[in-house]
């Protein structure tokens, strides 16, 4: 399994949540809402392309709409592999975070 960066992980999750409306502007908006971190379009664009290369994302050109002056958007969707990758991450994280609450409380009380 590839090790994904935090950014790539967030991008995958965001696209999953946006369902059919995931194109570059909406992804960026959503990401900013989640992480309250400001990233540039370039960084997002590069991440998206890398995820496509990994085979975690696929893209298709949408129909043109009058809103954008008749220009089409490029929509992104998770592939099966993309979903599995997220599942893997989740599993790993669960494993790592298991027992966190108890241990953290213990330590805090001890001090």
């Amino acid at each position: 399994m590839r090790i994904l960066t935090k950014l790539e992980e967030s991008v995958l999750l965001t696209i999953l949540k946006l369902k059919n409306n995931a194109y570059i502007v909406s992804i960026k908006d959503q990401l900013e809402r989640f992480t309250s971190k400001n990233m540039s379009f370039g960084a997002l664009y590069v991440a998206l392309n890398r995820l496509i290369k990994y085979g975690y994302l696929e893209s298709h050109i949408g129909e043109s709409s009058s809103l954008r002056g008749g220009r089409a958007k490029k929509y992104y969707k998770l592939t099966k592999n993309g979903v599995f990758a997220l599942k893997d991450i989740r599993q790993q994280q669960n494993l790592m975070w298991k027992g966190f609450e108890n241990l953290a409380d213990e330590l805090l009380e001890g001090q």
Partner: protein
Amino acid sequence: MRTNKARPPRLGQWLLKKILPSEERRFLIEGIEERYVRELKDRGRISALFWYLKDIFRTIPILIIDDFLGSTILLKNYLKIALRNIKRHKTFSFINITGLVVGMTCSILIMLFIQYEISHDRYHENADRIYRILIRQPTDIYQGIDMYSISPPPLKAALMNDFPEIQNAARILRTEGLINYKNNRYLESRFFTVDPEFLKIFTFPLTAGDPETALNEPFSILLTEEMAEKYFGNEDPIGKILTIDNTYDYQITGVLRNIPGNSHFKFDFLGSFSSLYPIFSKWHRGGSFSEDWDMYSFKTYIQLHRSSDTGEFNSKFPVRLEKYRNRPTNDEIYIQPLTHIHLGGNVNDEIEANSDIRYVYFFSAIALLIMLVACFNYMNLSTASAVQRMKEVGIRKVAGASRRNLIHQFLGESLLFAFMALFFSLWLVKLLLPAFNSLIEKELSFQVFNNIKIFLSLLGISVLVGMLSGSYPALFLSSFLPVNIIKGKLISRKSLNKSSGLRNTLVVAQFAISTVLVICTIIIFNQLQYIRTKELGFKKEYVVTVPMQDENLKKNYGPLKHELNQYSKIVDVTVSNFLPFSVENSQAVDWDGRPEDGPDFRCLCVEPNFLDFYGIELAEGRNFSKEILTDVEQAYILNESAVRLIGWEDAIGKRFNCQRNVDGQVVGVVYNFHCHSLHRQIEPLVIFLLDDSLWWDVRYFSIKINSEDIFETLALMEEKFKKFSPYPFSYSFLDERIDMLYRREQKLGQNFEYFTFVAIFIACLGLFGIASLTSGQRTKEIGIRKTLGASVSSISVLLTKEFMKLTSIGIIIAFPVSYFAMHQWLNNFAYRVDIGWIPFIGAVLIIVLLSLGTVFSQVFKAARANPVDSLRYE
């Protein structure tokens, strides 16, 4: 509906379009645009623009980096091909890399030198707030300069009082001293006596002792680690007593870390200022020396408060000195920032000779020229060898490589070359640095990895070199049309011509640069030769000079001279205040009809035998005579310049006076001899005899010796001198001292020779490469010509002619450039060689012969080839 206003700035969009590959870019650009429109609506034009610019600035670098990393698979292939090419074309790779390595090595060395020069005095914590006080004396121009770095001692208090901005001020008195510790006895010339504030103003850390108190008491002394080792070895010097000039006992209160080489003054000992009161009280007439406004002996440095405005402070100067003293004077006080001193040229009475910013520019120019020659080389060879890589380019294009890919590939290749060259030249620099240091007499150090700035700038330079030298080949190679290549049509005639046009220009430029350097070298060499051999007007051979720094020697001059004269190998002995090649002091003189503002004359105080000793010839009148008793006070001999300045038809017998109670008269006139360096015209000079009141000013013994058994004679002299003086015996030959006057020029000449050699070497390397390539490409033409009856010699001439055309154009361009440059340089000398045509002919011969030799071997090989081989098709 969209209006024009709702669109983001064009430049940004255009940039993005350029950077992103074709189709893909659309979606990103449109995305950014959409968001921009929303920002515009929500938050207004200004913040939308800000958002946009910020986003663009962050986006572009990411895209560029991604672009390069994205092609890692290809990268591997590029690297493989590049390495294969290096291996296959060993000669070219060798020439390419050698050219770049030599060029880079030179440039790095020069860069280190420049960095060292501009780093002078910057290590002081307060460097930007320290100033040196200069005094301008408009009525006393010495060596063409009226600025003096010396000032009278009361000035310190006066300035402190007048300018609240000044936080600290310190005076420095530089003297020589005979230092003695348990018969460990040396004459030290770098002995400073300073105010306690000296250690506050400058950053000279102490390894032992307390900087706050070390210089407070009279007869306290600090010394550097180097000196501590010299006098005390492993002993602890603190508290020990050093005896100075056999009279004064100084107690050591601290040890200083050694003074860095990049300082405009260096010292070994720091004595406390308060010691001067008892020392000077012995001979100083009337009051304390510290109130004496006429005692121009001290350097004064000031340091401003951190809070004070340096610009405003600067604008308060110059200040008239009259303000502080009760006598009218034209002198003015100037300030000079500490960091400007080293590269600011010399004023009078510098502690050490300074450098000049012009030399820094000059060396930067040379570094740049050499680097350019090396880059041109690379460009030339890669475009010339392009034909051999056409197939590769064709196949890549057919397989789908875009022009961008190819440009990346070739740029990458030249970067690879540049980095390889950097690697070798770093190694070479390490190897050559000691030699270079002794050449320029500095202590440069080179630690690439300790100095991140140097490391980064080196990387930067090699990237620049790679980009510069790779740019044209990359564009050229990637422009081939695959159809033509695959068809075997080679490249279109037009682009081939274009490329050879550029190539020729570059060769011309290379040879123009080399020729300029050769011509300059020859002219500099001529001028130096001229200086060395010019008749100075006095005899300088076999004269040993001994500085007379010791009172004991002056007291015992009679017996000493008598003993020396006993020895048959010593021809004659004389003393004078200065040596005839450099008469440094000047005094007011008087004659009938002297105008109010008449100039001072240079003064040479001598013994009666002086003129005979040095073979200075009289134009009219008589020499000094021992028999005529009044000569001691009343006889003056002038030089021709002085007589011309006064305007006398017949000078003999005219009234003349030089700071004496009794008027004297002119008894003789000497032909002009060079009493200064040849940089300057011969100034008016008056020669008169030493009387008792002038003995304190006597500085030099001149001793003429026989040419045989010089070492034996020197040993005898040492023995005699030791008898009368506790000082170590030091001497130098007069002609060596004269050579020292032109040291700077000699260094320049030497450096020029080396750099010229390097430039020619690189240029010839390039020519060699091109010659072998083009004659290789013309084998078929040569074959046909030969079958039609051309001889080897006619073909050689044909091929050589083209190269000679290029070199000739280069040489012609070089003529006016070098003439102008050298004319400027020679203007520094009052006495100089005519430039003439010999340097130009010489340079032409050198360049033509070298380039002929380089080209000919290749051409001859091509011309001799058997046409059967070159014309046969498989």
